[in-house]
């Protein structure tokens, strides 16, 4: 079991305090220190998964007690998006966990890490899950594409404006509607990512459908959309079948 943790400078107190109290927790968790947990980027989470993390753990300040005010509200939203993405990729969303740790919450923190480790042991390591290693790599690569794509990051950054602040007419989006929309966008972008991963070499829509498990009709739809976005193009026609390839921009 390999767990990567992210902690802010202040919740890190609890971690050190757990050390002073000699509370034991599994040695296979290592923490990256960030000034505030809001520094956590979705792309970092997926990077950790690509480097073999079986789970991600976050030690955050208690809600409303963040030293940088809204910081941990934002990171909670990001953790939620990461869990959504895991679910869309066919992995368990419980592979991401967090604990609100104030300085003196060392005991609770150690317990939370222990509980998370046990839960992960039940799930098994990521590579030992039903899917084989190459397929996992493919899925994580598709997730990475989602996290670094500008439109997705743009819409995620608009949450404040769309849901909480509202526009000049004071029209706000219902938070549930926003969530549904984000999930839809993440799923679509993930599917596009999977297709693009398969289009590194010229490939037909039917072959991509076989490789990814998405229906051929949907794959063709998405490829047409990718063509419109100039992220994929028609390469050649072989045996009356169009072969598409990813456009790698300089």
């Amino acid at each position, binding site marked *: 079991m390999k767990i990567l943790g992210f902690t802010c400078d202040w919740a890190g107190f609890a971690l050190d305090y757990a050390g002073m109290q000699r509370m034991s927790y599994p040695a296979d968790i290592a923490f990256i220190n960030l000034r*505030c947990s809001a*520094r956590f980027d979705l792309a970092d989470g997926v990077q950790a998964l690509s480097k073999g993390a079986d789970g991600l753990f976050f030690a955050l300040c208690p809600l409303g007690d963040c*030293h940088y005010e809204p910081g941990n509200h934002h990171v909670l939203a990001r953790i939620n998006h990461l869990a959504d993405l895991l679910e869309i990729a066919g992995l368990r969303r419980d592979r991401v966990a967090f604990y609100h740790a104030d300085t003196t919450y060392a005991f609770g923190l150690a317990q939370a890490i222990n509980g998370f480790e046990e839960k992960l042991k039940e799930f098994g390591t990521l590579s030992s899950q039903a899917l084989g290693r190459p397929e996992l790599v493919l899925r994580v690569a598709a997730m990475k594409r989602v996290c670094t794509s500008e439109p997705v990051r743009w819409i995620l950054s608009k949450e404040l404006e769309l849901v909480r602040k509202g526009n000049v007419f004071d029209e706000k989006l219902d938070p549930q509607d926003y969530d549904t929309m984000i999930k839809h966008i993440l799923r679509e972008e993930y599917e596009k990512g999977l297709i693009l991963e398969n289009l590194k070499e010229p490939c037909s829509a039917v072959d991509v459908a076989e490789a990814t498990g998405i229906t051929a009709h949907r794959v063709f739809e998405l490829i047409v959309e990718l063509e419109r976005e100039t992220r994929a193009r028609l390469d050649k026609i072989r045996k009356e079948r169009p072969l598409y390839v990813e456009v790698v921009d300089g």
Partner: protein
Amino acid sequence: MEKVKIFLCQGCEISQKIDLEKLKKHFNSLAQVQSVEILAQLGDGAAREHLNGVEGALLFGACDERTHGSIFENLARSNPYQLVNLRERCAWVHDADTGATEKAIRLLSMGLAELTTRNTQKHLTEWDLDLLHRVLVIGAGPAGLACARALAEQGIDVVLIEKSNRLGGTLRRTRTVWPSGEDSEKLLHRLYDGLQDKLHVTVYQETELVNLEESLHGYEVKLSNDAEEEMGAIVVATGMREVSGNLFEFEYRWRDRGKFRGPLAFEVKEGVHPFLLETAFWDAVMLRHEKPEERIVFFVPESVVLSEGFKEGAEKHNIEIIRGSIPGGVRGVTGVMSLRPDRKLRVIVKMPRRGTGVTGWKGAHVKLGKLVGNLSENLAQALRIPQDTNGYLAQRRYRIRSRDVVHPGIFVVGGAHTPMPMEETINHAFVVAARIKALFDSKPKRLPGAEIDSECCIGCGYCAAVCPYGAPILERTDTGHKARMSPRFCTLCGLCIAGCPVFAISDPVKSRESIKAQIDAWGKV
């Protein structure tokens, strides 16, 4: 990147739980490591002597930065260094047979990755802030005067600006000070006398702050009298004012003339500030002592919640509380509003006489409305302080500092935060003056702020919207919008860095590459 020298500490049970020889063997085999040394205690004099003259990037495997950080800062001198906590995060929580050594290797690899990816030009995480010993105090009310006085007495150059043409603020509008009962005018004299001639405070009347920009030695301020000056610190003492009410006027008239005729009606408006209600109640009790027979009534809307203490006190002093508005309304001269000395304090309030039908009676009518912050929206924006719905300046970073600090060098005093008794206001002003003196004397340090790559920026406005400190500002350019960062206000929390859609913002201390390298190093072991 030059090669890294690693020093491991044996003390504090580290060597009992972690196989340091194994660590040494592992890291000696890496290309970017020059040497690995194991020392008995990294904190003692022998280690300092041993490290004397060692140059280049240093990686320490030892203990907590919070408790022992300064020791390693001294050990490293001006060399770039990274401290890995092998004590609290490894040796003290894991045992040798449960993988403490493996974890130590992992932690050290991550530290090594962070050190090697760090920009060596900026390895100093903080820079000295050379502040100009000059303070701008905005607002010449009790808080502003007290603060200016306390600062000037400590030998600090002070510029005091006031929007109106008279100094004194609230003290001019009230007769005595609540709740001590001190004469307002005497207090004003105590605060003001000698301020300009003996303490040499520069006072500009009918002057406002127009704009504020950060500069090398503090803030560059622009005033409405076309003066442009550089200030080391700024004190916001703009106070509060009463809207849709006349309690202050009433107090002034009452204490000035000393008498009025007829009963007294306090009309409480919805959304009244509790502070105002409390002050009015105190007035009512004082009046009760003067006029034991007269009717004193509070008309309180249903939406205003009254404390039990208020109700009990009202009963004790025979003050009536009637829920709802005045039934017949108010007619006549609202004499309370007038400051002309010949005008009588008399209005006609139509209300049911106790037990009988509706008739009018003559008396005084006091409206208790809202108290709001006095600071204009533009100024609050220039100062980058958020306001709440009543215009008070919101508290910031309460976990780190007490309530007067907003941004480094900007302080909010007195009623601009929230209405408070006069004594508290003046004490607060003294505290802030002491803080400013301490700030100037302590040679403060600041972290470098986040940096925005303006070529990469798409002007979406995320950073400007999300930053709690208002550090990034969205500016209009010929082709659209671009964000600009004000490093003085940035705390490097990383909220905008992680959320930027196009990765245009970077952290000079802990870069994106550094975090990625740490994750990679973690994954490799």
